[in-house]
């Protein structure tokens, strides 16, 4: 869990843990040593108290002064261990071994025999046996000390009695652990803010570097390089250097990408220009043929009118196409009529004648046509010219326009090599601007997508002989949805 935390927390926590563990370990060791020496210290303390009582108790025993003996014992017993808990006590005994006074008169009753009898479960030696200092230890670790008090002429005038229960020798772990706890608390109080500051200082360059890395791709690499910290630490310096190198490479890559984008834009503009030129160029051959026809046979009114109508519709188609390229222009278009199919066939005949291609057509009109004439004429012309080229010398092309209540379909068959639907889709997605044929197919596809129609190639098995390729283009026949509304782009 610790490694997941930020350095600002890791470092103070680590410091506190280290110090606390050190304090606890030292305290445990010290407590063990202290516990071992505690008994000896207690025995020494008791011995000092006895020495004091021997000196101070001598005149009191001589005067048989119980009250002053009691006050002496009451004050002196405070030096014994755990007296307040009743775990140690002292008394002055007279020469016969009776209590003159005790620090705890209830347990050491004045006037009662002490030596030679059981006192608090311990059999004490008789007065005659206690003519020298005696130390009695019980099984549970308790201790009783008896020391005679002698007069100046070496006669025993009384005894000092001191008793320490086993519980008084038990180590007071709470008291011993208190310094450790206080030390740990002080360490926490001091080291937490200190460690937090230290951690923040240490983590600042790392945070700056991380922040810099996080902004890569969203901010200017040159500006990000300025945010990288200047550090002396070799590891951090290595990281910062790597990030700086990454930023430099990113900047170079972005410059390259910018250049590529500009080139792509230029290429796109070129492709669009080529496509527009292509779309304008397509009807031009037919229009030139019509003007030639008008020049040669324009005397007849029918021929003249028919040629003029053809030229007008062809020019109108070019006008509509060029207007459509202007985003702000609102293009008004008429609905397609069966004559448009005738016009397109007429416009393509010149090209077909050049390649000796035979063009046939059929109209299967089961419903009125409600599709934009310019779009559909352009598609039909594109596909027809493509089919003528694909059919090759002496080939055959057959165009069929069919309508029903839902859609208007234009299907074009041609001889030559088979053009599968997969190949068509690849051609559409490849966006190969170098292929002049590709522009016509791409525009047909775009029209189909834009107007909710479709543009597919029929599989070879479904194509009637002698044709090898069949392309189908359709748009929804808007009659079905809104008969009153003129078709508009």
């Amino acid at each position: 869990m610790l490694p997941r935390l930020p350095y600002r927390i890791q470092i103070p926590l680590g410091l506190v843990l280290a110090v606390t563990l050190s304090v606890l370990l030292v305290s445990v060791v010290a407590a063990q040593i202290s516990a071992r020496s505690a008994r000896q210290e207690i025995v020494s303390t008791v011995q000092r108290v006895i020495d004091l009582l021997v000196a101070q108790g001598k005149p009191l025993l001589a005067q048989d002064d119980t009250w002053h003996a009691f006050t002496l014992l009451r004050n002196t017993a405070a030096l014994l261990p755990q007296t307040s808990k009743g775990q140690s006590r002292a008394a002055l005994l007279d020469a016969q071994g009776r209590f003159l006074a005790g620090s705890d008169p209830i347990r050491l009753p004045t006037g009662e025999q002490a030596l030679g009898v059981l006192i608090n479960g311990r059999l004490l030696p008789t007065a005659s046996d206690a003519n020298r200092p005696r130390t009695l230890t019980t099984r549970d670790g308790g201790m009783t000390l008896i020391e005679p008090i002698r007069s100046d002429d070496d006669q025993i005038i009384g005894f000092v009695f001191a008793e320490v229960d086993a519980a008084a020798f038990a180590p007071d772990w709470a008291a011993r652990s208190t310094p450790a706890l206080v030390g740990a608390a002080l360490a926490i109080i001091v080291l937490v803010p200190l460690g937090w500051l230290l951690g923040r200082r240490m983590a600042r360059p790392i945070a700056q570097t991380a922040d810099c890395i996080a902004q890569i791709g969203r901010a200017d690499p040159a500006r990000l390089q300025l945010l990288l910290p200047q550090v002396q630490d070799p590891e951090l310096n290595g990281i910062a250097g790597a990030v700086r190198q990454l930023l430099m490479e990113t900047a170079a890559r972005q410059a390259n990408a910018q250049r590529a984008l500009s080139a792509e834009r230029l290429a796109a503009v070129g492709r669009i220009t080529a496509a527009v030129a292509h779309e304008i160029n397509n009807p031009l051959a037919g229009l030139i043929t019509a003007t030639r026809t008008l020049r040669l046979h324009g005397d007849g009114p029918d021929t003249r009118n028919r040629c003029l109508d053809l030229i007008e519709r062809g020019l109108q188609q070019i006008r509509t196409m060029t207007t459509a390229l202007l985003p702000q222009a609102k293009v008004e278009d008429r609905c397609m009529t069966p004559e448009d199919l005738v016009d397109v066939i007429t416009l393509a005949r010149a090209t077909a004648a050049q390649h000796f291609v035979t063009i046939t057509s059929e109209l299967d009109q089961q419903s009125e046509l409600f599709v934009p004439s310019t779009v559909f004429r352009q598609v039909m012309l594109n596909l027809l010219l493509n089919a003528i080229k694909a059919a090759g010398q002496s080939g055959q092309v057959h165009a069929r326009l069919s309508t029903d209540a839902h859609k208007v379909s234009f299907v074009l068959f041609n001889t030559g090599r088979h053009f599968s639907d997969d190949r068509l889709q690849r051609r559409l997605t490849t966006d190969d601007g170098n292929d002049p044929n590709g522009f016509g197919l791409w525009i047909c596809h775009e029209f189909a997508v834009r107007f909710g129609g479709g543009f597919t190639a029929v599989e070879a098995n479904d194509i009637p002989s002698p044709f090898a390729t069949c392309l189908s283009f359709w748009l929804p026949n808007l009659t079905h949805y809104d008969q009153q509304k003129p078709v508009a782009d």
Partner: protein
Amino acid sequence: MLPKRNALRVFTKRKCYEIVIYYAPIPLIENKPMQRRKLLELGATWGLMQAATQAQALKKDDTAPLRIGLTAVILADQAAFLTRWSDFLGARMGVPAVFVARESYQNILDLLFSDQLDAAWICGYPYVLHQSKLQLLATPLFNDKPFYQAYLIGRHDNRAAIKGWSDLKNRVLAYSDPLSNSGWLVAQAQMRAVGLVDQDLRRSFFAHGHRNVAEAVASGLAQAGCIDGYVWDTMQLQKMAAAAQTQVVWRSDWYAFPPMVAKRFDGNPALLALGEALQNMPADPQGMSLLKALNLTGFAAPDAAIFEPIKALAASVGALRV
């Protein structure tokens, strides 16, 4: 070894010199041939006594303060209170007053008879013992009466509770002072009345003060104690632990309250002023405040007749040595 009769201690910053005056009983001197060394000792003693007397006289002439001895008849270990009281008395008398407290009546009597004290507040029993050498200055009024009682007290939680004097056999009894009426004399009479002598007790001891008697019984050092009823009541009034842990087992008849005395024929005019100042304390708000702290209601004019019962009691136990 000669008995210690008196001691004069001279305190300086670093050392304490003690001049001890010994005296030998007259029969001892009469029965043995006087030796040269003894004569020299007596001569030296006489000389020292004369020097001490002259020194005391010199001090008196130099507007010496009136020295008043206090004993265990009151709870006299309250320094701030004694200062206020001495200031009060000094202002009323026109002479500074100084309180001198000692643990035992004998110490105070020794100081008084050696002219190191001008007055003393002692028990009725030492008064009747030395009545021929003492004059009464005033008698305190406890609950508006110059009388008090002696109590026999025991511990509250004593399983073998003491209900009377006859229960003291083989028990530890604490006396207050060998010259105390309530703390010794009354007990002697009562024990005699129930057929007990001191040897019937497991042990007896003097606690050197009424308050110490209460503490000895409360701590279990003694199973019973003889105490001045006024002191025990005052301790209880002041909510002292020793009084709270003890109970009164027996109350005596009424005896004359410990009086304020001076040496008879002492012509010091300040003594008369002291008696008047004490008797006029109830008329003064400050005096009333001091009396309240003492748990007294006033001081009465001297009346030696009220001490007759104590004298009779002492005579009954053969303790009237004068």
